[in-house]
Structures are given as structure tokens and as C-alpha cells.
């Protein structure tokens, strides 16, 4: 067995709690075209790193990002959990929108120009199952589509074709992606193999770094278990590079304690600064499924959700400070997401139920700070089924990061998404100009009325009027559950113009419908009311 064969066999090695797991299957090891071999090194020259922060459970976006400008409707929708208006934190450069009072760390990052808020991110036909919604977010599939690979996995597969055959190698000595705190993720699943490796837990990761394993019983079984674990560690070629990277960093800023997200991000900072070329890190933080008692009724700014948000905010702030201290700030962008938001109206258990679109944060010195989008539309008399209508498709966030942060050609980016959504991917102003030496699109023109309908309200149907700047133009109509009712416009316009399209609603029940216009980087959601 030559060295290459050895590595080939060594990579998919195991796993165990005190060690390291990775989910490689042997399947992809067979294919090897000369072209692909030639492309073994990272295809795109960049040292940029993306840190994905998953908030598991479905985070209540409306209590994290509060529509101050529309406060009375917000308060009306969730009297029992609403954050008092005078307690909402302002964010720099943004008026009419604020964040939860516990998120002072994040507020500071906005002030420093290192945070970006994206309003109402979602997708058509939202799924309200945690599992399915998580799979959709990880795979970037459509709601009704089964995609078996993850968006980051497809990206890494493009950058490092043929993985894991021939990896690690002199050009890429390190894991392509590292997940901390989980043993498996669809996000890094490539077309045939998982591109990532996972570090099973912070505690055990420390064991890995320190070269120790959990104690084994003083029995023959313990003796053999210890032996197998040692062989396991030796065959895990990445464990030493990870350990070395971790050991290269001896000083970090102080992170908050009793905060598992902070623990994980601290490891990430250490590995980035320690020299790993790993491009994608994933951390996760759970507990957001707050169907009941998400606040203390005596003081709604405290309670379960407040504690979670504070930990997120504190952890991200400490992380950002740390990577600045470690002089790698300009290489890192982070992103938070949750598999869904919560319903607009709170429930009687002082909690919120599974919802649809929700805000996302980006953080890092390279983000185009501020807010994208606007406060979600809140009905005057919300019902239990009302959802935050989607303003941005989450796939456009991903594609923009791939294009503007990982510096991929737009055509390549599009090839990484299911074909039926390619044309709908928007290039959004999320990252500062010049990061990829590219041209940042002009900022969105606000204030101009670019979509409306007449008659309004309507009984049978209505015309939707809209202005396009030319190019691909998309109009989707959603109901309040976020279900896609129809896509009346999905085409290329040769030039800027005003146009209209008829929305026939005779078969639909009365209620609010949202028309969403998307044109280039522009998007706008317009509520339309159908009455009897």
C-alpha cells in the first residue's frame, strides 16, 4: 500500500465520542478523472472563511428584531410577550427597527459597522416541521423538492473536486469544513460524499486537542477499547492538523461562560487563527422552540428567549473581538439562521408557534453593515395562522455569499443550486465592495412605489402593477401561511418599464395575499386584501 492508498483509507476513519467522526462513504473514492486530479487544489483563490451559526428550534424573529415603526400592530399581535417599545435597542443607521434589549453585543457590532440585518428571509411554501425545514435550509432545495446534498457541500465539491480521494494533500492539508457540536450535517453533504468533518462536542474536542481520551474500565474490554481508540486516532489524519492549529493559538479574548455557542465559536476562532485553511465552519445552538413561556410575564425582556438571544449576541460579540485580536478579522464572515421563524400572533401559553420567514444576521468586518429589507407587514387584526411574509429567499443569501464572499462567478454559483431556482437568485448587497475586487450593485432605491394593485381591496381579482428595471423579474403571490399561490411573472424584460399582470382570486378565500416583486437586487412585498 503506497502513501496515497494509505491516506485514502485513512481519511474515512472513525469516530468515537472522545475522538472525531467524519461521515465519508467510500463511494466517491473510486472516481478519478485526470481533469479532476488537476483541479485538486482549491479552485478559487481565497482565504475567506464562512461561519454558519444555526439557531435550532425556530427562532422568534419578531421578538429578536422588533418593528418599532409599526409598534402598535406588533404589540397588538403579541400583547403577552411584546418587548416594551422603550426597551428596544436601536441599531446604528437604521430607524424604525430595533433589536431585543438583551442583544447589546450585537448592537455594538452594528455601531462598529460589523453587522448586517436581513429582514424576513424564507422561501415559498414554508414547511413547519423542524426536521424538514432544517433539511430545506441545509440543502437549499425548494419546499417540495428532495435534495440529498447540502449547499456548502456542493460549493466545496466544486472547489475541491474528487474529495476525499487524494486528500489531504500539500495544497489542502486541512478539513474542508468543520462542524462543531454535531455529528452530522446535510449542509456539507456533497453530491456523493460529505465534505466536512465533525467534532463531536466541545468537551471531547478539548480531549482531542489535549490528546487524551475518556477513561476506559480496568477490564479486558477496557484494554481493547483503549487500544482500538488509539489506532482510531492515529488513522484520523486530520486530528493532528486540528490539534496543531488549536495549539498554535495560546491567547484569546475572554468569552462568556455558561454559553455553549461561545464555547464553540471560541474553538472556531482558535482554528482559523491557528492556520487551518478550512473554509466553512458550522456551529449550532438550540433551545429556540419556545411554544410556551418564552418570556417572564412580569418583565417580557427577560426569560427563556431573552437568555438565548443574549447568549447569541454575547458569543458573536466575543468571537468578533477575538478574531480581531487574532488578526484574522478580515478573513471571516458569519451568518445566523434558524429553520423557521414563529407566528406573528403569540399564543395563550406566553409563547409562539412554528412560523415562516425570519430575520438573519451577518457579522464580520467585511459585511455591508446595516439593514436589508423592511419591517414585516403585520396585520391590524392578526389571526393564529398569520405568518411573516418572505422578503428574501434564503437561497439568495447563500448565493450572494458564494459570489461576493467566496468570489465565485455567478454562473458557477447558479450551478450549485437546483436548476429551477437559478434564475430567481438575487445578488444582494451583503458584503462590502472590493472584497472580491468585483463591483457591488447599486444600493436599492427606497421610497419609490414599485409594486401596487388595483382594485384594492378586491373581491374577485385585481391587477398587480409593477416597475421593472429590466432583466429577470419575478412576481410571486403568497397567502398568509407563506404558501405560494401563483407566480404571475417570471421572465426577462429587455428594458426598464412599468407593467401589470392580473391576479385572479375568485377561487381563493378572503384574506390578505402578499405580492412579492423581485428584480435584480430589488425586492418588495405588497399586501393585497381580498374581501367578500
Amino acid at each position, binding site marked *: *500500500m503506497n502513501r496515497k492508498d*494509505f491516506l485514502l*483509507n*485513512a*481519511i*474515512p*476513519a*472513525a*469516530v*468515537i*465520542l472522545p*475522538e472525531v*467522526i467524519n*461521515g*465519508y*462513504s*467510500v*463511494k466517491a473514492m473510486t472516481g478519478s478523472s485526470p481533469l479532476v486530479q488537476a483541479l485538486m487544489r482549491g479552485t478559487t483563490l481565497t482565504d475567506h472563511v464562512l461561519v454558519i451559526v*444555526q439557531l*435550532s*428550534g425556530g427562532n422568534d424573529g419578531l421578538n429578536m428584531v422588533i418593528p418599532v415603526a409599526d409598534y402598535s400592530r406588533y404589540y397588538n399581535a403579541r400583547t403577552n410577550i411584546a418587548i416594551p417599545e422603550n426597551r428596544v435597542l436601536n441599531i446604528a443607521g437604521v430607524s424604525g427597527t430595533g433589536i431585543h434589549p438583551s442583544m447589546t453585543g450585537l448592537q455594538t457590532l452594528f455601531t462598529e459597522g460589523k453587522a448586517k440585518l436581513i429582514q424576513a428571509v424564507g422561501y415559498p411554501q414554508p414547511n413547519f*416541521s*423542524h*426536521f*424538514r425545514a*432544517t*433539511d430545506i435550509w441545509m440543502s437549499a432545495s425548494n419546499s417540495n423538492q*428532495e435534495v440529498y446534498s447540502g449547499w456548502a457541500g456542493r460549493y466545496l465539491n466544486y472547489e475541491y473536486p474528487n474529495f476525499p480521494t487524494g486528500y489531504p494533500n500539500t495544497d489542502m492539508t486541512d478539513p474542508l469544513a468543520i462542524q462543531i*457540536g*454535531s*455529528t*452530522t450535517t*446535510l449542509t456539507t453533504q456533497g453530491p456523493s460524499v460529505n465534505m466536512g468533518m465533525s467534532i*463531536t*462536542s466541545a468537551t471531547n474536542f478539548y480531549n482531542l486537542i489535549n490528546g487524551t481520551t*475518556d477513561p*476506559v*474500565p*480496568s*477490564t*479486558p*474490554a*477496557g*484494554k*481493547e*477499547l*483503549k*487500544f*482500538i*481508540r*488509539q*489506532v*482510531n486516532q*492515529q*488513522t484520523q489524519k486530520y486530528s493532528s492538523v486540528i490539534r496543531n492549529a488549536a495549539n498554535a493559538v495560546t491567547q484569546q479574548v475572554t468569552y462568556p461562560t455558561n454559553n455553549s455557542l461561545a464555547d464553540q465559536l471560541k474553538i472556531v476562532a482558535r482554528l482559523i487563527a491557528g492556520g487551518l485553511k478550512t473554509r466553512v465552519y458550522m456551529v*449550532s445552538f*438550540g*433551545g429556540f*422552540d419556545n411554544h410556551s413561556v418564552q418570556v417572564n410575564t412580569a418583565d417580557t425582556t427577560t426569560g427563556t428567549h431573552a437568555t438565548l438571544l443574549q447568549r447569541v449576541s454575547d458569543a458573536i460579540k466575543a468571537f468578533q473581538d477575538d478574531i480581531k485580536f487574532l488578526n484574522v478579522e478580515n478573513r471571516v464572515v458569519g451568518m445566523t439562521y434558524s429553520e423557521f421563524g414563529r407566528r406573528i400572533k403569540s399564543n395563550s401559553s406566553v409563547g409562539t408557534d412554528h412560523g415562516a420567514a425570519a430575520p438573519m444576521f451577518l457579522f464580520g468586518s467585511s459585511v455591508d453593515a446595516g439593514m436589508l429589507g423592511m419591517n414585516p407587514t403585520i396585520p391590524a387584526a392578526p389571526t393564529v395562522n398569520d405568518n411573516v411574509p418572505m422578503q428574501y429567499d434564503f437561497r439568495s443569501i447563500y448565493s450572494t455569499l458564494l459570489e461576493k464572499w467566496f468570489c465565485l462567478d455567478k454562473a458557477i454559483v447558479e450551478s450549485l443550486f437546483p436548476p429551477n431556482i437559478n434564475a430567481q437568485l438575487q445578488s444582494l448587497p451583503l458584503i462590502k465592495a472590493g472584497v472580491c475586487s468585483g463591483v457591488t450593485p447599486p444600493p436599492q432605491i427606497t421610497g419609490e412605489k414599485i409594486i401596487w394593485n388595483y382594485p384594492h381591496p378586491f373581491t374577485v381579482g385585481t391587477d398587480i402593477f409593477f416597475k421593472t428595471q429590466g432583466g429577470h423579474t419575478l412576481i410571486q403571490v403568497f397567502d398568509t401561511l407563506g404558501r405560494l399561490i401563483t407566480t404571475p411573472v417570471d421572465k426577462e424584460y429587455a428594458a426598464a418599464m412599468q407593467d401589470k399582470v392580473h391576479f385572479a382570486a375568485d377561487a381563493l378565500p378572503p384574506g390578505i395575499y402578499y405580492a412579492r416583486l423581485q428584480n435584480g437586487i430589488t425586492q418588495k412585498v405588497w399586501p393585497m386584501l381580498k374581501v367578500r
Partner: protein
Amino acid sequence: MDRREFLTARRKKQADNAENISGKPYRTTSGIATYTGAWTEQEVTHLLKRTMFGATKADIDYFKFRTMSQAVDELLTPTAPDPNPPVKEYATSTTPGVTPDGNIAQGTTWINDINSDGTVQSQRRSSYKKWWTGLLINQDRSIREKLIMFWTDHFGNETAEVGYGNWAYKQHTLIRQYAVGNFKNLVREITKDVSMLRYLNGYLNNKNAPDENYARELMELFTLGKGPDSQYTENDVKEAAKVLTGWQIDGATYTSVFNANRHATTNKLFSSFFNNTTITGRTGTTAGDLELADLLNMIFAQQEVAKYIVRKFYRWFVYYAIDAATETNVIAPLADIFRTNNYEIKPLLAALFKSEHFYDMLNRGCYIKTPADHVIGSLREMNIQFRPEAEYDTNYGLWNTFYSWMVNMGQNLHDPPNVSGMPAYYQEPSFHEIWINSDSLPKRNQFTDTMINSGYSRNGYRVQFNCVAFAQTLTNPANPNDLIDECLRMFFRNDLSAQSKAQIKTQILLTGQQWDYYWTNAWAAYISNPTTANFNTVNTRLKSLFQYFFNLSEYQLS
């Protein structure tokens, strides 16, 4: 530093740091008194993993409602009929110079066909190995298949060197016949077996030029061993070789024949170790059998034979370390039973598998799985099924895949590195640990990864671990805690900590969610409405769970 030095150096380092080093009294002093403790799934699983390949849920459920004694007796009393012989599943060779076996139709057996073409015999060896692999996977509820592997390893023939598929099969059926029978008779028959005659040169052994090869291994490896109490002399080997002169192979019938003209008719004189026995030289057609009987009577009169074989059984079924207490409390009394029962295998193994020592907690979960335990055991525990016998091409093709996996992990059935058999059963001090190294361990993980993620397909039939179907056989798969616990009890002999189990549950089955009922709901949704989407939701998570389980170091122990 080569691999062995590498491993040794590390083990030494480990020993320096560890509290648990060789020589420390972590072994047990329990003996062969009948075990009277609890008889639960745990004990059943322990017994099955050691005596069969893996412990399937069906087998565990079956034996759990019998007594320990009934279970052992039943395992030691195979009732299934002998399997149908291997068939021709290979293409009739068209290579110039080959004498193909076109007379044998596809799908019919080749075992009675005489064809000494090397290519044909190579095809048959391969056919035999595939067939055997199929038998292992489809084993009956008995110890038979594992004992066949034991004896095949014990006698250490390499089919690649013997060359003849027909002969390999013939030896296999001989071993199958005697596997749970009488050891002395087995030795008698294997002495005259064509494969053995060829492998250890017995067929060349004649009065003019005695060949000592078989006579030496008969004593050193097959019966007496090389222990301190095995004091046969070089001259004993020479004299035994003379006893064994005259046996030949009839190439026209693939049977052994005794040629009296080649037999040394002189008296054979043995050393004081054998009480200065004289085996009287015989003449005529019965000389070979008569003198062989005398020789075996003389050897089997030695106390050491039973002890040597019992130690081998011990290392095959219990653990490799034999300390003074084990020698006194287990090996010696079992050897007495073996001798008292005139080398009947069954009473000996019954005493072992019913003993306190076998069920001693210190002897559980310490057995490093052989590649066959790993490959065949995983396939069986995950309920992999094959096609009806008529679809031999599909079956043999798939069996070949699993046979090859075992080879890649270091165990080539009926083709050990040399006549000593697999080093894992005799090589001091590492023994079973030899199975696990930086080459074989990743392959073990690759195998289970592959079986979970893609499996193998032939003629449109795919064998793959179906994690969802497996979960459905469990008692309460809707509860993620019960699901994990029950899987661990079946797959592992060493439990994980509660913290680890909670972590596995949250991170894999719950995808980071905090409430168990999300798994319960997902499972219920799949059961009541098995759509693709509902299937995928549970399948994605179960696949990750099982892949994780099978990659744990604990999975390598049984």
C-alpha cells in the same frame, strides 16, 4: 519502523501510562462451574456473538425464552441439512490453452467434475469461497459455521497453494462433517485428505525419501503444540513421517489412496515423551490406516493434546490472554472433560459455554471482532437478504463482494498466511489486536459506511443496510431514547455513558432540537403515511445514527 514495531512501541508507551497493564490482575479466577446467574438478553447476546456471526434480533428473541443450558445445547446441535454444493457461476473459459469445463452447465455443481486445468480450478476456488461466504451469512442457528472456520484455520491449508477448488471443497465438507464431532477422528481423516496431502507434501512421503512436513505439523500445530509440556523430539517427527508414508492422490478421482509399495514397513520407535512406544511396521493395503491409528492413539494419549486444543478454543471464543488462574481453573478442567469424552468436541464446548467463566463480566465485550465477525455479523444483524438459489449469479456476485471485504481487512478464508493459521490466534503478545491497525480499521469503517450509504447491487438487486426497516423491528422506535438503547444493547457489548447517549440523540435523531417528540412525531408520520418525504426525514437521521454507531471503537468489540 515497520508496522509491527510501530504497534509494539505504542503499546509499550500505553502500558507505561496505563494503570491497566499486562500482568495486573484484572483477569478473573472464575472457573467452569455451571453459570447460574441471570439469563437475559445481555447473556444471550454475549453467547451468540461469540458462537455465531453477530447476534440477530430474531436469534436473541429465540434464545431468550430458553434456559442457558438449552440454548447452549441447541447451538451445539446443528439440525439444518447440509447445504447444496457450490455451482458453476463463472463463465466457461475461452482462453486459448485452457481446457474449459463446458460440460458443466451454468448453475449446476462442479464438485464431482474432474478437470485439472489451472484456470478452471482457480475459478472453482473462487466459486467455493463465494459459496462459503453465502453460508456464513445464511448460517443456521448453531455454532457450526464458526467451528468450520475454526477448524479450517486450525489446519491452516492455503487453497491458493493447493490449487484445486475441488479439493478445497472436499476438505471443507470433511471439516463440516466433523466440526462438532470427534476431534481425533477429524485428525485421522484430515491426515488422508487430498488437500492436506498436497499442502504438506504427504503425497510425496515415501519409504525412500520420507517427507517430514506433515508429521511435524501434526504434532506442532494440529495436536500437541509447542508448549513447555510438549516434549516430542526431532526423531519422533522422523518416525511419525515414516508411519505416514505411502499416501498418494489419485488425480483421476480426486481421492487419496494408500500405496503399500511406498510405505516404510519397518518398526517406528518413539522417544520417552511417548513412553518409548514402538509402532509395528505393517505391510499390505491396510498398513497405512493401521499405523495411522496407532500413531494417533499414541499422540492422543498425551495430556497436552487436550490442553493445546482447549487453549485454542479459548482464544477463539473467549479471550486471548491465558494467565495462571485461567490455566488452572479453566483450561485444565476443560481438557479433562475433552479427554474423558474421548475428544468429543460437543461436551467440551458445552462445559465452556455453560461455565461461570464464560459469562464472567470480565470476559464480556473484550473480544476484538474478526473481519468475518465484522462483515458477516453486520450483514446478519442488519438482516441482509439474498435471492433464491436459482439466482445464483446475483448471489455469488454479492457474496464475492463481502468475501473480498474480509480479505481486505486481513482475513482470507481458507487462505491463511501459512500453515499456522491466522496470527491473531497464536501471535504473542498481540493476538486479537493484530486485526486492528491503521489499514484495517478504516476499512472496517468504510465497509459499514458503504453498506449504509449505497450498498452493493448486482443484476438490479441491491443489498444495503435499511436503517428504517431495522428500526421497525425494534420494540419502541418512536422513542429516541429506547431506540438508541436497544440498538446499543444489540450492537455493542460495552455501554456508552448517559451523557454520550443524550448527545447522540440530540445531535443526530433530533437534529439539535430539544424535544424528544419531534423524533416521535417524525417516526409516527412515517409509519402512518410512508411518503418519500416522511421516509427521508427518518431515514436521513437513522442513517447518520447507524453510521455513527458502526464507526465507534466500541463496535469493534464483541
